[in-house]
């Protein structure tokens, strides 16, 4: 098996090999570290590689597995974290100069859960500064480069995660998603990323951007791998008051049930005229694939969908400037210009506008609830466009010039406003060999169904098996 074959092993397959002792955690970790050292200078996905800690964790995992103390499918598996998750004794910068020397004394709950599962942390990944943007062009640490075309963005803000997965530089990752920051890089890098239901996964120990919109989500190279990671991190955390008590099902079993008879709704009114032709072609192919597997596709209405952009701005700006009060007051000059400008704008919005948006948000939630009474899931393209070039600030859709940030979040930010689970899974490539993502949105706490649809698509196609050139 070649180095690349090893690097792209599915988590499921790697777990089998580790459990059967066909390969050891130390071998796997060394191979990942060597690959990062060889390849990451052109991608800039890692802000910090924790080689010493990774090898120590791998040795522990190896000894435990050898002694018959196998912890489960993440045991000995190398992973990496967006640099927004607190890691005890390991620098956590949030991609900002403001926190350049910040070394937390505790782990985020999800990090502690992954350590408990025996996973091996390889390092911390590049991101859009403070998760407040979707390009991953970071003014302090440099842009992350898309492995499919290194002149293009990865999407963000979990862009280091998307690119590292696409390049085979880790087996899975955790990202965060406030307006699409897991799903957008998943789509633009050709991997799978899940934004769970608000409350499904603890946010304790994750630096906030906007409390009512922030979600933590797993990213990997398949829906099944995402399911295994979700299994380890989902569930109530007493240290996060927003985490819910909903039972956590066996995701890996639940997602294998197929989609025969499943009802898929498409909000065509929101999609038509807003999507690049090649993205639309891939989206329609994915719908055809689902129909071929026995699902039905019909149109659903989301009348308040067009308000999403205004709602999102009215909520994310005040919440984020509040979250950044202490740093903005003393370190404003250390922020990158784009993030600082966004934060300052939030300072001026009156409380009445914020609360009005929070009230109208209920109406959007009602739209999604009504639609999901008619269908089981809602499908959209994850993004209307493929990865733009680094530095490109606007793109043309038909006759319209659109801001890259606005257009990339068109279909993702409404889902943060309503708190429902949504996955992005690969659904095709353009003629320029750039990946396209399919977004599947489900009912609250029904991650199993959205992952089931993604898994069915992946099984019926080969899109998730494609690899970028090395």
């Amino acid at each position: 098996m070649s180095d690349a074959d090893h690097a792209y092993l599915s988590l499921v397959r790697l777990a089998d090999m580790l459990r059967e002792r066909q390969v050891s955690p130390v071998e796997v970790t060394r191979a990942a570290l060597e690959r990062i050292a060889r390849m990451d200078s052109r991608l800039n996905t890692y802000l910090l590689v924790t080689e010493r800690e990774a090898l120590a964790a791998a040795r522990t995992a190896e000894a435990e597995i050898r002694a018959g103390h196998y912890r489960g499918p993440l045991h000995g598996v190398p992973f990496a974290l967006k640099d927004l998750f607190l890691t005890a004794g390991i620098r956590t910068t949030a991609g900002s100069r403001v926190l350049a020397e910040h070394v937390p004394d505790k782990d985020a709950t999800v990090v502690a859960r992954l350590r408990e599962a025996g996973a091996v942390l390889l390092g911390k990944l590049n991101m859009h500064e403070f998760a407040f943007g979707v390009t991953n062009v970071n003014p302090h640490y440099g842009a992350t480069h898309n492995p499919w075309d290194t002149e293009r963005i990865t999407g963000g803000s979990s862009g280091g995660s998307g690119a590292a997965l696409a390049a085979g530089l880790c087996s899975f990752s955790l990202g965060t998603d406030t307006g699409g920051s897991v799903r957008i890089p998943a789509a633009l890098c050709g991997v799978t990323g899940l934004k769970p239901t608000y409350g499904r996964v603890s946010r304790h120990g994750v630096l906030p951007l906007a409390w009512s919109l922030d979600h933590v989500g797993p990213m990997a190279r398949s829906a099944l791998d995402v399911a295994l990671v979700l299994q380890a991190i989902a569930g109530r955390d007493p240290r996060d008051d927003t985490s819910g008590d909903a039972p956590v099902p066996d995701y890996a079993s639940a997602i294998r049930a197929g989609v025969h008879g499943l009802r898929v709704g498409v909000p065509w009114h929101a999609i038509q005229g807003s999507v690049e032709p090649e993205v639309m072609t891939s989206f329609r192919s994915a719908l055809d694939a689902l129909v071929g597997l026995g699902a039905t596709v019909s149109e659903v209405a989301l009348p308040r969908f067009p308000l999403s952009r205004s709602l999102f701005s009215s909520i994310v700006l005040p919440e984020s400037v509040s979250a950044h009060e202490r740093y903005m007051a003393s370190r404003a000059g250390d922020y990158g210009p784009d993030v600082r400008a966004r934060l300052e704008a939030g300072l001026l919005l009156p409380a009445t506008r914020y609360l009005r948006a929070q009230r109208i948000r209920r109406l959007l939630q009602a739209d999604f609830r009504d639609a999901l009474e008619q269908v089981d899931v809602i499908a959209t393209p994850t993004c209307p466009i493929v990865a733009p070039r680094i530095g490109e600030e606007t793109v043309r859709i038909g006759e319209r010039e659109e801001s890259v940030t606005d257009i990339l979040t068109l279909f993702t930010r409404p889902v943060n406003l309503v708190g429902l689970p949504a996955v992005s899974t690969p659904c095709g490539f353009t003629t320029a060999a750039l990946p396209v993502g399919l977004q599947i949105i489900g009912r609250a706490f029904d991650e199993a169904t959205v992952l089931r649809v993604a898994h069915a698509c992946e099984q019926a196609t080969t899109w998730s098996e494609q690899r970028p050139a090395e």
Partner: protein
Amino acid sequence: MDTPDPFPLSPDAVRQIAAAAGFPLDAARSERLARRYQRLLQDIRELDSVDPGDAEPAVQFRTEGLARE
């Protein structure tokens, strides 16, 4: 279409609001922010015509914890 107020908040008002919140801004930055705020109000003004009815704010965070306390 209404013509927007050229400065919903004057640069000086912006500077004072920012200072009151503990964020000092110089004159040039205050003016840029005043313009940005003007664009932001334009961007979100479609919400002005939406009637939220009896809807309460969708403040999802902390409610469960408060109930438990």
